[in-house]
């Protein structure tokens, strides 16, 4: 990992190892900025204008000739910034990437900490970069953990790929880039809307340090229920015939079972929690009547003024085209669109996002792209009380499209509905409620990196922590992130054991223990006697809830 701190844009301080060639290269970078008539000072002003956050996606393989610079921009938020500003932001990022690749060809720049901004880099696909720029405002809430922000970028990208395939593939399909932009723009806008609090985007901050974005929260089930679940899974998957299909079962917002690869599980789980689970559906229900009024609402631009697009670049990003009023150059589905899923009478969840008319129930079945099999799958979601079942069937296994899917749904109901009833009942009985995984006295986050699973104290309990404690843990996690990524480069494939305890200003203990790929983060506010006491508390927790994984030897 390389980390660069730029205190001033024009600082002539250069790494001691820089050779003559490099020096000339760097000067070239700066030339790029000047041609785009942007400066670092300029960047900051843009930041304020867009409420502290910018997000862009660009392709290093495009727009390499003078006059074609706009080509490389695939997405920019906020979209109403003048192109020159957009280009200057992207130019800087591009320059830094090119520059740092010289030292580290495999992994270029990850983050730039400037005086007033943090630039978070993520290479989503080869040469396709996502950069998020957040402002370090005086607002004391604006304290980020860089890795958490990068997780947002990763999430955007992997969800996007799940629905639309890779960006590179889109670019290859239509080299002009219009298709790609037309997909990216509404997708990310829909995604960001989930971060909207009032009229402000609220990105993951230190307050969220006890959660892990790219992981799955699981329901703990007893053996008996687990067997019931697995037999249900078998029945579900056997209803689709002999072709390999996959399933995902959630109870409330917790995962119960998956047969997908970890990567696909994370993505679909996330999508389910965002849009499909009973909770997600009910939050949408509020605006249901509004949605019923206009069928055309599927392409209505998002109501928030913040996320609405400026007229300048609408054309460019294709959002205009995506709206029904436009000339429909591209047919763009918006899977993350809000309030578009409903529970049908038969228990299956339906949406008209993929086309069709929800009123007549004649809708196109959603499809997703699986990372594991590199195959497009139909997505069937069924809901019974708190249980949400997602079944993925390969497009290739169903010959007559939506008709075949509805036959399959019927089969599914015939074969499995009794079992579903039984499983729901079993799980409900064993369900400890929202605070089931609260451990009194502890505020914790448990991450199993091997299996991309996490569990944490319930959010309502985390909010009882004081700001100091959270800041301390946030800081601690940053350290651990750094340590982990260093270890990853130093010693690939080896897991590093690690233990850190720090004492916060308010005498709380923030503890991190990493062992065998599993991570435990903890805040102990009431254990303020000694380090021994804190360590003892961790030990107890480990023995009780983690089968001794984190117990020290």
């Amino acid at each position, binding site marked *: 990992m390389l980390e660069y701190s730029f205190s001033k844009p024009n600082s002539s301080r250069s790494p001691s190892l820089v050779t003559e060639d490099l020096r000339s290269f760097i000067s070239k970078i700066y030339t790029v900025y000047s041609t785009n008539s942007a400066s670092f000072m300029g960047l900051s002003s843009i930041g304020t204008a867009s409420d502290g956050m910018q997000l862009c996606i660009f392709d290093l393989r495009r727009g390499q000739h003078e006059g074609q610079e706009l080509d490389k921009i695939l997405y920019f938020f906020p979209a109403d910034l003048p192109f020159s500003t957009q280009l200057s932001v992207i130019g800087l990022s591009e320059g830094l990437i090119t520059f740092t690749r010289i030292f580290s060809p495999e992994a270029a720049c990850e983050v730039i900490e400037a005086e007033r901004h943090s630039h978070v880099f993520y290479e989503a696909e080869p040469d396709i970069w996502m950069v998020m720029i957040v402002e370090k405002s005086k607002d004391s809430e604006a304290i980020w953990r860089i890795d958490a922000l990068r997780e947002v970028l990763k999430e955007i990208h992997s969800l996007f790929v799940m629905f639309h395939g890779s960006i590179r593939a889109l670019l290859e399909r239509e080299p002009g880039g219009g298709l790609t932009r037309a997909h990216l723009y509404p997708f990310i806008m829909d995604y960001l809307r989930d971060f909207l609090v009032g009229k402000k985007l609220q990105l993951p901050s230190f307050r969220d340090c006890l959660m892990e974005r790219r992981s799955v929260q699981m329901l703990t089930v007893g053996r*008996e229920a*687990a*067997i*019931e679940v*697995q037999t249900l899974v078998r*029945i579900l998957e056997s209803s689709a015939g002999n072709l390999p299909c996959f399933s995902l079962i959630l109870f409330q917002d917790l995962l119960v*079972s998956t*047969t997908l690869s970890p990567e696909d599980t994370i993505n679909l789980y996330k999508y389910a929690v965002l849009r499909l689970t009973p909770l997600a559906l009910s939050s949408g229900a509020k605006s249901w009547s509004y949605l019923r009024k206009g069928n055309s609402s599927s392409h209505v631009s998002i109501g928030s003024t913040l996320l609405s697009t400026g007229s300048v670049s609408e054309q460019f990003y294709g959002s205009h085209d995506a709206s029904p009023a436009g000339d429909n150059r591209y047919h763009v589905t918006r899977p993350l669109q809000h309030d578009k899923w409903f529970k049908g009478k038969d228990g299956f969840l339906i949406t008209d996002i993929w086309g069709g008319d929800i009123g007549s129930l004649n809708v196109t079945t959603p499809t997703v792209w699986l990372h594991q099999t590199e195959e497009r799958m139909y997505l069937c979601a069924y809901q019974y009380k708190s249980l949400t079942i997602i079944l993925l069937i390969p497009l290739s296994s169903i010959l007559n499209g939506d008709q075949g899917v509805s036959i399959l749904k019927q089969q599914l109901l015939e074969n499995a509905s009794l079992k579903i009833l039984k499983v729901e009942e079993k799980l409900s009985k064993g369900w400890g409620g929202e605070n089931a995984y609260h451990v009194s006295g502890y505020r914790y986050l448990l991450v199993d990196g*091997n*299996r991309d699973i996490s569990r944490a104290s319930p959010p309502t309990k985390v909010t009882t922590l004081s700001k100091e404690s959270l800041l301390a843990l946030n800081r601690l996690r940053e350290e651990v992130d750094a340590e982990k990524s260093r270890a990853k480069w130093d010693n690939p494939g080896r897991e590093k054991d690690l233990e850190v305890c720090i004492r916060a200003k308010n005498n709380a203990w923030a503890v991190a223990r990493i062992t065998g790929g599993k991570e435990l983060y903890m805040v102990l506010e009431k254990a303020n006697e000694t380090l021994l006491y804190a360590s003892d508390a961790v030990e107890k927790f480990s023995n009780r809830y983690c089968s001794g994984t984190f117990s020290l030897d």
Partner: protein
Amino acid sequence: MIRNLSFEVKIQHNLKKCFYYDDGNKLLLSPTSNQVFSWKTAPFSPNAAPNIDSITEGPICSIRFSLDEKLIAVQRSNTSIIFFHRETGETFTHRCKSESESILGFFWTDCPSCDIVVVKTSGLDLYAYDHASKSLALVETKKMTVSWYVYTHESRLVLLASGMQCKTFHGFQLSSVGIIRLPKFEMVMAKPEANSKPVLASEDVYIVTVYGRIYCLQVDRVAMVLHSYRFYRDAIIQQGSLPIYSHKVAVSVVDNVLLVHQVDAKVIILYDIFSDSRAPISAPLPVLFRGFPRSDSFTSRPGTKESESLEASDSNDNEAIIYGEGWTFLVPDLICDVANMRLWKIHLDLEAISASSSEVPSVLEFLQRRKLEANKAKQLCLAITRTMILERRPINMVAKSMDVLVTSYALSLKAGSYFKGIKTERTSSSVPNVSGPGQGVDVNTGRTDGLGKSVQHESASRVNSVSVSRPSNYLSSETEDSSSFEPLKISSNDAQFDSGKVDTGAESSATGNPLNASVSEQQESQLTSPAISPDEMYRFVFAPAEEEMIGEPSYLVSIILEFFRSANLEKVKVHPNLYVLTVQLLARSEQYAELGLCVINKIIEPSKEVALQLLESGRQNFQIRKLGSDMLRQVSLHQDYVLLLVQDGYYLEALRYARKHKVTTIRPSLFLEAAMTSNDSQHLAAVLRFFSDFIPGFHSTSDFSTYYHILNEMNSSSVVA
């Protein structure tokens, strides 16, 4: 549906056509003018030689041995019964006191208060036999009008018919625990026309014992149904009716299966009335002879089970006609062919029965309840289950089948029969006879009922219930469960039928060859229960299925999961090998996510075998390997865990772990070598230091000197570099 029942034969040639069946002792009796031939039918063997006892000459209405087989009671007329003591030859006679009543019959009982019950038109007389005075002492009298009666020793139940239509019944159960008086009840009879009132005959009523419960079956020839009634201690409850397709029917019970012989149609319909279902087990099946003996030499009969069913025609004796005129159906499962002097025992051809139904779960259920040929039933179950899996039948069906098998196993565990192994059939213990001179008492008889009297002291719990040759454990447990119910008993007791014969052939002397009553039935079934343990499920079902089902193993995994579900419900432990197999199958089909869930949720229970398999399967998948190593730690296989850590290069962690869990059996050189290969002198030094500190005398070992030397070299070379 070609073959169904096989009959065993025992026959006798010159015997006159006069047979009585003593169901109390399971003896086939054939009296001549001055002798009684008796063949044991209890262990059924074609070659048994008869016992011969002498009696005085006289008419015989019925004849029964006492339950201890010391006395022979012969009803001479409707007023007298004569008793012979078998050893001493003493006799005495019991007579009706009053002229107005006549004796309908009698039977011996193991009721504590009395030994013999005489059924008269005026009621029951219960007598105790007094050894000393060689006479009967009246214990109790139950007054009521009796037209006719039905009794089976198996059920210890006597039903007394009365009323104009003979459809009002009083019942008593006289068992070893005492006498129970059943409430009076009426049987149902359809009227052929408005004014006619059919009279129920005794041959239309059967007492039947199935699964330790007692039922009464009543033929209603007008409605063409067989009504069934179940007896409880305090109630008689009608249970619905079975259709009949023949004017002449008979009822047998074999291994708790109810057989309704549709005599005219020459088929049998089988019912397993364990549950409430009144549906036949299979389509009607014909009867086949099996192991029919050569007419000349009688001896060669290969084991009943093995002998292929001979077509009926194969027998040289063409006299053997299925459902011939002379067939008499004896208590539970015997048929006496009077015309041909043969005694047949009914066997169920389980294979044919199971082949005639496609409802696998119910077939398995049926087979799991069979006790007589437990081993065969078990083999059949295994084969059926295996086939079902290989044929990839729907999961729901297989799941139901698993439930059946596991439930049955759990039941047999509870009852203890699974481990009992062989339970030898109880042979009616012939107690050495103490000679009591039998007082001959002249009893003149009227009509007879060929009812046997029972001798056998069976360990029927509470109510009598044990039927022959069945291990008592299953039934008795069953009996205890069925609170307040009497175990039912089914016996096809053609009392009247017998008596008819008696009339004709009375009195002929059997000088000739006695029937070959044989004593030892093959003990082919060493098992008392066809229950299948999880271990056997693994060895005979899943492992072979896995070998045969090449390709995508997902179906088999589904089945195994269903098995786990059943086993978990019944709290039956699953064999670790099956878990190992599951891991292999899931890993082979690369269903790692599911495998992970199965391990984490302990669907696959942790064990050393599973952990090692996870490590093995984890070569392709890091997460799975991780689960394996976690499991090693979880099941406290400290040494294996430490070794694994060292192998993976985590030697420092391994040392720490070894120290904590006191693993001392691993050679220090393993750690040292691992540290050396990591080329980190600090680590090597640390490891050396560790052993120097914790192993006394480590300094003087060759390991120490070797690695100390290596460490010095490393250090010096690094300095040079």
